[in-house]
């Protein structure tokens, strides 16, 4: 009986043993696979999350120029205003419509500004009309209220981004700020079921597979927006199957962690939409700027469609490279718009017929003025870590005046070329730099680092340290004038040949520019006006070179030059910005104001982080500075810089100094009006001779730049301790006073020497006498 059972049992156990032999390894294997898969998933999860979080924070700092302030009484040409509006990308219409538009009607300009969050608060859209008359703003009317306004300002120009290391760039969009038709259109075209799927859309994949099989090639993609976002994080050329699987997993993981809104927002900021040389264009905000030079909110529906059409292939559908293909694709997108009710069927063909409105030349990087932004970066570096600067999305408000900057760039380029051809120099040999600041307030308005202004190369304005030559002389003469009992403008100096024995035994015999000597009775003011070297060296040695160095320090110089006689001829180096600092202290009458390029820094959400307040400090007595400035006006009128008045109107009082170095290697000019100060350097990078003096080179560029600006005369207040004494300038070195000509010379009160006989002022019977008149009675 048992035998029967056994055989049956034997049969089934034979089956079971086959399975049970396989089972343990199978279980082990599958457990291993599961564990590995889990680990891998965890790894992918970590990767995609850190990318997502990283993308949210790696926003470069946005750098803004100063906003244009508008108020009745302002001297402003109507073209300067419209230039600024064009720069800002405002649209010029026959009539104003929405924000960012303007209209011109004769001498009236109507503007609707864009809302903007300034460092002192939000300025909502302003709608106003400006009336111009005789080169000024005559009236400013708020068109909402109909009332006259005292002052308003435009939104500032975005001049740059301080990039993260990867060289990427963003204009951050918040999901709430994105036009609805962009979102709806994007989803309609790229991911209809966005809000329903879980990261991957199986239906869409199936549909795509079928369509591709039918067509025999890839005609449709089944990726969701989420998958595309993941793809954009790890943008690589090949799209292998393994990659696609990984992306799918990560997409699902993303959706587990983040909401639809967050994912969509990240996508809108991440999606790759174009290339500008080395710079990748990511995100719709930046793309709008890059293709249309306006913010997203101002795009028309066909422009929105164009941006969406780029998602599938920014190079392939580049409107600048293949306009036809671009229009075709755009119109396809517009059809999808219509199919989803985003565009009226009736209007569709009209809209599709509209031409491409893409701006031909993409805005030059978002850093338009790299030399200036370089200065901004350096001035921030002390306060912010580089990483914070480039990854926190800070909003930086600067002092740059785009109008002044463009004048400086234009004039510099034009005149360098002219100078080269005039002197027979090969084209491209000369280089130059300029710094322009306000006189009061020490604000850097413009900075040019070289003739190739779009290129962020060697920044000569900040880093080209060159001997300053005669630019040092005002410091020498100022030091002398601060000892008014010994030196006044009419003190006679010795310009006879001088030989100095140096420590090593060599003889140094300085020469004048004209290779002549001018005797031993040169009035001080003439020696400075005509920049006599020999007289200046003697003067420097008389007063002591260390005291000249001290003066330079008080004017704001940070250097520590050697205290040798050649210092009086500027045989030490400075960069143009440092020169500007020194001359700025002179221009303010002895008030040292550190030059700043930044007004304020705000966080990404516009919370104030730091303000760069006006700081000034009197470091030199006003009296001597006033007298020196008087002398510097003589340099312009009768001295080495008088050719400036071939270009600028003689009605404008200016002060300045030419600077030329050995063998004419460096050509300098530093000078100012009542409101603008400018330093120009011209030279060669290889330090070869330029055949240009300060007057024939830098001064010419300086004068052309200044002449393009709305200049105010340099007319400082006369301090209480300065008196103006009428003297005959032709007789200053002699004793007889013919008083054929009369010129007023400044003196510190109480220091007019006994040997000085003031002329009778022919225009008034009252003679201004100095305190010494009392003593004169007893001579």
């Amino acid at each position, binding site marked *: 009986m048992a035998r029967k059972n056994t055989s049956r049992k034997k049969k089934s156990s034979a089956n079971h043993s086959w399975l049970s032999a396989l089972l343990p390894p199978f279980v082990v294997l599958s457990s291993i696979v599961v564990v590995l898969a889990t680990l891998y998933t965890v790894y992918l999860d970590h990767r995609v999350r850190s990318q997502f979080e990283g993308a949210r924070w790696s926003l470069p700092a946005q750098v803004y120029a100063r906003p244009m*302030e508008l*108020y*009745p*009484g*302002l*001297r402003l040409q109507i073209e300067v205003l419209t230039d600024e509006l064009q720069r800002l990308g405002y649209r010029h219409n026959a009539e104003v419509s929405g924000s960012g538009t303007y209209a011109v009607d004769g001498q009236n300009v109507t503007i609707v500004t864009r809302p903007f969050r300034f*460092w*002192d*608060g939000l300025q909502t859209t302003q709608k106003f009309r400006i009336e111009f008359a005789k080169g000024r703003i005559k009236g400013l009317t708020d068109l909402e209220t109909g009332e006259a306004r*005292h*002052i308003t300002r435009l939104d500032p120009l975005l001049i740059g981004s301080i990039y993260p290391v990867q060289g990427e760039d963003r204009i951050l969009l918040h999901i709430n700020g994105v036009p609805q038709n962009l979102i709806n259109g994007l989803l309609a075209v790229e991911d209809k079921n966005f809000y329903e799927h879980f990261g991957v859309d199986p239906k869409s994949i199936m549909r795509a597979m079928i369509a591709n099989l039918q067509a025999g090639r890839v005609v449709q993609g089944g990726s969701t927006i989420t998958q595309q976002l993941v793809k954009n994080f790890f943008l690589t050329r090949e799209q292998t199957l393994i990659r696609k699987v990984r992306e799918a997993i990560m997409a699902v993981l993303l959706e587990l962690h983040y909401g639809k809104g967050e994912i969509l927002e990240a996508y809108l900021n991440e999606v790759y939409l174009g290339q500008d040389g080395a710079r990748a264009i990511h995100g719709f905000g930046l793309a709008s700027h890059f293709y249309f030079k306006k913010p997203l909110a101002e795009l028309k529906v066909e422009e929105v469609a164009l941006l969406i059409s780029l998602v599938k292939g920014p190079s392939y559908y580049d409107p600048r490279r293949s306009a036809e293909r671009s229009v075709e694709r755009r119109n396809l997108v517009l059809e999808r718009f219509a199919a989803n009710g985003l565009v009226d069927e009736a209007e569709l063909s009209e809209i599709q017929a509209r031409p491409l409105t893409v701006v031909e030349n993409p805005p030059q990087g978002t850093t338009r003025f790299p030399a200036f932004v370089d200065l901004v970066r350096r001035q921030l570096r002390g306060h912010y870590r580089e990483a914070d600067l480039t990854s926190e999305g800070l909003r930086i408000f600067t002092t740059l005046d785009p109008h002044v900057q463009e004048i400086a760039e234009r004039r510099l380029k034009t005149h360098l070329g002219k100078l080269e051809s005039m002197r027979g120099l090969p084209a491209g040999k000369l280089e130059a730099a300029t710094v322009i600041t*306000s*006189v*009061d*307030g020490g*604000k850097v308005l413009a900075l040019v680092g070289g003739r190739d202004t779009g290129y962020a190369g060697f920044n000569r304005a900040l880093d080209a340290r060159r001997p300053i030559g005669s630019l040092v002389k005002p410091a020498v003469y100022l030091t002398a004038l601060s000892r008014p009992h010994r030196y006044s403008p009419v003190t006679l100096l010795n310009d006879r040949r001088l030989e100095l024995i140096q420590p090593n035994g060599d003889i140094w015999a300085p020469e004048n520019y004209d290779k002549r000597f001018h005797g031993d009775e040169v009035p001080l003011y003439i020696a400075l006006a005509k920049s006599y070297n020999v007289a200046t060296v003697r003067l420097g040695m008389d007063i002591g070179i260390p005291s000249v160095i001290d003066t330079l320090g008080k004017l704001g110089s940070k250097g520590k030059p050697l205290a040798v006689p050649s210092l009086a001829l500027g045989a030490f180096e400075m960069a143009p910005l440092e020169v500007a600092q020194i001359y700025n202290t002179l221009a303010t*009458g002895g*008030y040292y104001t550190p030059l700043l390029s930044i*007004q*304020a820094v705000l966080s990404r959400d516009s919370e*104030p982080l730091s*303000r760069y*307040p*006006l*700081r*000034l*400090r*009197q470091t030199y007595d*006003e009296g001597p500075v006033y007298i020196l400035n008087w002398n510097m*006006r*003589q340099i312009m*009128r*009768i001295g080495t810089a008088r050719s400036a008045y071939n270009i600028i109107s*003689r*009605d*404008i*009082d200016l002060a300045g100094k030419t600077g030329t170095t050995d063998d004419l290697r460096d050509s300098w000019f530093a000078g100012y009006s*009542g*409101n603008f100060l400018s330093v120009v350097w011209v030279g060669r990078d290889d330090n070869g001779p330029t055949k240009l003096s300060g007057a024939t080179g830098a001064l010419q560029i300086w004068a052309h730049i200044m002449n393009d600006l709305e*200049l*105010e*005369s340099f*007319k400082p*207040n*006369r*301090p*209480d301790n300065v008196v*103006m004494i*009428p003297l005959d300038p032709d007789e200053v070195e002699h004793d007889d006073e013919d008083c054929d000509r*009369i*010129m*007023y010379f400044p003196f510190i*009160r109480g220091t007019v020497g006994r040997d000085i006989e003031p002329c009778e*002022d022919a*225009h*008034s019977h009252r003679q*201004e006498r100095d*305190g010494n008149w*009392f003593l004169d*009675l007893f001579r």
Partner: protein
Amino acid sequence: MLGNSIGYAATGCLLMAMGGCAVFKGQVTEPPSTSGQAATGTRRESGSEQAAGPAAQALMAQAASHVETGDYQKAAATLERALYIEPRNPVIYAQLADVMLAQGLLGEAENLARRSNSLARNQPDLQAKNWMTIARAMRARGETASAEAAEMRARELKNLAGE
């Protein structure tokens, strides 16, 4: 001739005894210059006609209201905006000095007050106020003697203003 000289001498003695410079103060007009024509485009910066234009005034009023709400940073930023429009207006500098005072930034306040004085012409009220600001800063630094001298100047100017 001699009589005139003695007359001058006597007056001179008297005035000098009173503090010297007074006789030379006051009506000093810019003598005609032979070095060029009168410049255009300049704002005459003499005396009490130095009222701020409406744009600067509007900003100064804004700044004042910021001060009232205790927002000193905004007040200072607004005043700097006013200085962009009228860079040499001593009243704006004085108002900015006040904001610095309110923030306890005495050194800054003093510098701005001095700047205001250097730009002021025949504005004794303003100058007196500035000297009081300077005196405060000096006291805070323990420079008592200088502070007292500054306060005296302020009083003198106030008397001058009262005349």
